[in-house]
């Protein structure tokens, strides 16, 4: 190789074969971080020293003839809601500021076992609640393509880290679009896999029946490699599907001839005209490559936001009750335990988190359960069944990932509902438990990236990646 490898595939192969050293790859990425991180703030913590030690170990393994794994020397950033033993995991919240977990998340262990080098913990909306990373207690992450704009959220830091070449790949979490939307806004690939394919053990829970971990990468092949490395059954997660890792690399060059790609005729409107234009071009490209475009209806999709904003906060209100100042994290002293709870949680949580905890508590409370949470679970069923009917006619569906391109910092902070609308196309997938991914596809207003979302049925990652790879080829033309 004459040029330094930058992709996960390239780095892994080159380091594994001894062609390039892990240390050299790492230093290149650390230099990028030094240069631009002050302007972007993708990280809550850069773990340079630990990364150097790991990279040196990888090189030593290679020199000694031991195989460090398929991700040998690949610099990877981890969203700061993934537990990393001995390394602060804050969820970008004051209530966990400085907290060092005594254990690693399963996905962290798997990446480490594959030879990955962790460069740091990335910024997020506090407890993964948000679509712009403006809800972080430690400052917003800015979009590397235009630092007056947001990187999206909640995994804004992880998306920006890949977009700015701070890491070759990163992990985020997606509950209502928190991987896909920032991927679209930052012009990178982001994947939310089928619920249950990636272990949630060690992912700080936001909404348990919706959360999934997934990769950010610069291209579809890299996403395929990272997803394979982190997926597969985990006995520590009861919701983990008893299957092996998700493998999709073999379908990437198949093309889309004969596939049926669904267009949702009753898709909620209100997207930027450029975004709608890019989507139309995406359909055209797939049609030209031999796919059939079919019209499908998802009449319940428009109720997805409501169902999500009742279910997710309800589960979150329970998942976040453990932050009480007793065993870890922040504590505000008080004369009795009950007072300590109230003072600690008031001081430790930001406004969006408080809002969602209260909304969720209300939705579950006596007298309101049936009207809110109970109904939302039924709407979830309607959406799931709509998708089933659609997937009888189409192999994948296509939508914009985000209705808008990256917006200016501060543009939506005073209007939570407007912020929630960012996830109108991504939320239904989480409700159904299906996989979906965002692929960069051209630009929109002000030259900012547009992402097209490929949706597939449960365990439909192969066909999803197959179509995504074709879109990527089309976008490059």
């Amino acid at each position: 190789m004459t040029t330094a490898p930058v992709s996960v595939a390239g780095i892994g192969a080159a380091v594994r074969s001894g062609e390039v050293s892990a240390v050299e790859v790492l230093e290149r990425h650390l230099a990028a971080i030094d240069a631009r991180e002050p302007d972007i703030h993708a990280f809550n913590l850069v773990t340079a020293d630990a990364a150097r030690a790991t990279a040196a170990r990888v090189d030593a393994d290679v020199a000694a003839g031991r195989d460090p794994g398929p991700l040998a020397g690949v610099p990877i950033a981890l969203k700061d809601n993934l537990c990393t033993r001995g390394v602060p995991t804050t969820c970008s919240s004051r209530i966990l500021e400085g907290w060092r977990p005594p254990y690693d998340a399963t996905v962290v262990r798997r990446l480490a076992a594959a030879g990955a080098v962790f460069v740091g913990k990335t910024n997020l909306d506090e407890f993964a609640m948000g679509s712009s990373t403006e809800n972080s207690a430690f400052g917003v992450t800015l979009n590397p393509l235009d630092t007056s704009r947001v990187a999206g959220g909640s995994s804004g830091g992880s998306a920006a880290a890949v977009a700015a070449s701070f890491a070759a790949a990163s992990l985020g979490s997606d509950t209502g679009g928190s991987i896909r939307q920032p991927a679209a806004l930052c012009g990178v690939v982001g994947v939310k896999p089928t619920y249950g394919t990636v272990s949630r053990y060690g992912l700080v829970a936001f909404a348990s029946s919706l959360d999934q971990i997934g990769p950010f990468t610069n291209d579809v092949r890299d996403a395929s490699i990272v997803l394979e490395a982190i997926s597969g059954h985990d006995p520590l997660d009861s919701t983990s599907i008893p299957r092996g890792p998700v493998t999709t690399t073999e379908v990437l060059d198949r093309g889309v001839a004969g596939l049926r790609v669904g267009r949702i005729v009753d898709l909620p409107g209100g997207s930027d005209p450029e975004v709608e234009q890019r989507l139309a071009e995406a359909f055209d490209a797939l049609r030209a490559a031999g796919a059939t475009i079919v019209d499908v209806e998802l009449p319940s999709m428009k109720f997805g936001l409501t169902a999500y904003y009742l279910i997710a906060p309800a589960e979150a209100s329970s998942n976040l009750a453990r932050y009480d100042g007793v065993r870890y994290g922040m504590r505000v002293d008080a004369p009795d335990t009950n007072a300590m709870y109230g003072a600690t949680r008031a001081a430790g949580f930001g406004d969006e988190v408080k809002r969602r905890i209260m909304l969720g508590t209300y939705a579950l409370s006596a007298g309101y359960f049936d009207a809110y949470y109970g109904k939302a679970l039924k709407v979830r069923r309607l959406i799931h069944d709509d998708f089933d009917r659609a997937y009888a006619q189409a192999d994948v569906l296509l939508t914009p990932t985000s209705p808008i391109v990256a917006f200016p910092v501060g543009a939506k902070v005073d209007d939570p509902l407007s912020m929630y609308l960012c996830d109108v196309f991504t939320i239904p997938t989480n409700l159904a438990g299906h996989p979906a991914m965002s692929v960069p596809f051209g630009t929109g207003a002000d030259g900012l990236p547009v992402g097209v979302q490929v949706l597939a049925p449960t365990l439909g990652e192969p066909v999803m990646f197959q179509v995504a790879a074709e879109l990527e080829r089309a976008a490059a033309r």
Partner: protein
Amino acid sequence: MSGYTIDGWEIVVGLEVHVELATATKLFSASANRFGDEPNIHIDPVTLGLPGALPVLNRQAVELAMRIGLALECTVQPCTFHRKNYFYPDMPKAYQISQYDQPLNVDGWLELPGGKRIGVERAHLEEDTGKSTHVGGSGGRIHGSDHSLIDFNRAGVPLVEIVGRPDIASPEEAKQYVTELRQILVAVGASDAKMEEGSMRCDANVSVRKPGQPLGTRCEIKNVNSVRSLGRAIEYEARRQIALIESGEKVRQETRHWDETDGHTHTLRTKEDADDYRYFLEPDLVPLAPDAAWIESVRAALPMLPRERRRRLAEATGVPADGEAVMVVVERGQDDYVLAVGAAGGDVARALVHVKEAYAEQGSIPSVPAADLAGMITLETSGRITATQAKTVLSELLSNGGGDAAAIAAAKGFEAMDASSLEALVDEALAAQPAAWAKYCDGEEKAVGAIVGHIMKASKGQADGKAVSAILQARRG
């Protein structure tokens, strides 16, 4: 027991019993389930409610819970787990994983020794909390304490909560229920069920009413630590409620704390808002549906239960099943032994008496071989040794862990006198005690004492008192 009243009032009692299961690990994580160790050594991310932790159900806990349900004649059904949300420092997640509207075991009963059936509404699985100790107050109570210390060793230990229907009508029935339940739990190997150690905890719901009237307001009594306390607490509470009602006041529905030292129940401090538990289905777990094969294998492997043991022993000995001898011997687990003595040729009714009286300290596998005890009993029932002599032989068998009863009797010169020797002794005594004899013949029963005493002295205690009395009676005519 039916028709029990206090001053014309009926008592209605429903018992809730929590049982710690005898598993090796906790309900949802693989930390050890052990009592009495150093604090906070049986901990893991799930036990401590750390961010990112996830529960995984313990199969053995399900097995033991099914044994309990089947032993209580419940139906085992497909079931789910729910979160019960509330704040308390010994609750690491600020919610308890329990079972709500779809519990594992439903609709059974427990039969009291006298035959009355107490309904069992349900028996479900849930996790235990940690333990708090209070420092600085009087007597280790919360009131007036300076701070509290929490140990999470017990947090997550599997519990089965057995909810009895309000069919119990007296303190005595309540005691019988708990005593019988304990025996069942021990017999099926589900728990050691020791109230004093906390592995079985009993709360009583008590109300009163006039016969024929609807149910009165009930109070829940907590902190009952022994069977005896249970009876005392129910009696106290019933009388307290009766006194309230008769003085024109209403019973307030509340939870009350039993104080063993002052023999009263006291109001636990009530809060303004009753806690709303906001039950919802636990999203981190999946449904539990034991298949018919598993249920049947558990049922088939159930040991003989105490009720059946009592029935079997009663049938063999001709003694009432709810009589003290049968109850005590079965409770001690010595019934198999009594029957074995019978099988070895000893009179089984006599064996029951001896085992009840002399075997209080011996375990369910007594040290004296059944055949040896049978040998002694045969000597006794054939008249070769007296009842008094039998006791002596038995105590020697006990201290030696067995032996040849006939040899022991012979060594002590215990062979009973034959009939002609006895007649000769009587002749001699009548000649020596003519006045006593005359009085006895006249109807003065007490006069026989002098004659019998003379005979016992002359025979150095070897004459069988009963046989002598029989001869004297016969001669009197």
